[in-house]
């Protein structure tokens, strides 16, 4: 009987020790800082993560950003951004990140809110071109609530995004900064 009670008491901990899955939603901010113009935009990423919080190297994630959710505050500019000279939303509707490996760069700290820093390696697909991307990320969790934040850059030329002639490097930065926050509840 005592063993049964002890097991029941430990159940929530055991549940978190096993790999759990979370549906993630969040927001993405992207910044193009070019000599002529600075463009700030937002998008709505979503995805899933599977992780055993006791062993972060088990983390597997797939995040998608529908390019139609990308907004820069100017409808005309957004239309151009989704057009075939830029992101070509009709042919490539999603930006996708699929993790392949996790390296823990700062081990778990914290009591009520636990935190760890990792480097996530994965396949990043943008404009139909897939490259291997490494991004630093911070994982935070409180009970079964999980938050993932990451910042990284993408170079447009790496993804065959040429844009209108003469615009990349003057009005649009050749490198775009991305700032992503995702949250979910581990089931």
């Amino acid at each position, binding site marked *: 009987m005592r063993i049964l009670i002890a097991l029941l008491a430990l159940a929530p901990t055991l549940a978190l020790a096993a790999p759990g899955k979370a549906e993630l939603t969040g927001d993405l*901010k992207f910044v193009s800082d070019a000599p002529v113009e600075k463009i700030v935009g*937002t998008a709505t990423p979503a995805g899933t993560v599977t992780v055993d919080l006791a062993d972060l190297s088990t983390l597997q994630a797939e995040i998608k950003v529908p390019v139609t959710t990308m907004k820069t*505050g100017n409808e005309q500019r957004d239309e151009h951004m989704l057009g075939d000279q830029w992101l070509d939303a009709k042919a490539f509707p999603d930006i996708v990140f699929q993790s392949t490996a996790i390296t823990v760069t700062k081990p778990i700290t914290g009591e009520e*809110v636990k935190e760890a820093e990792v480097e996530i390696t994965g396949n990043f697909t943008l404009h139909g071109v897939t490259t291997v991307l490494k991004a630093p990320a911070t994982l*935070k969790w409180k009970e079964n609530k999980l938050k993932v934040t990451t910042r990284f850059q993408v170079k447009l030329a790496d993804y065959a995004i040429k844009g209108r002639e003469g615009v990349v490097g003057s009005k649009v930065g050749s490198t775009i900064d991305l700032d992503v*926050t995702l949250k979910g509840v581990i089931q």
Partner: protein
Amino acid sequence: MAILLSLGVGAVWFAQGMHMGTLTKKLIEVEKTDEFGDKVVERSWEKTFELGLDFAGPGGGALFGLGAVLLVADRRRRRKA
């Protein structure tokens, strides 16, 4: 002169897409503290009104009207004289 000026302003308005309102929305960033105790930014887009090309169409029209009124007034003055 006013009519010529209105044609110029109208041409700019036409070339820019004949928009009657401000195209650019402003990104509003509100800092909050989330359940993890972190400062996070909530973002939303808000419609704004900026002086500029919004006035090019109506401005061109007003200049054209002023030019027409001055032209008619000038003709009447000449007839009377």
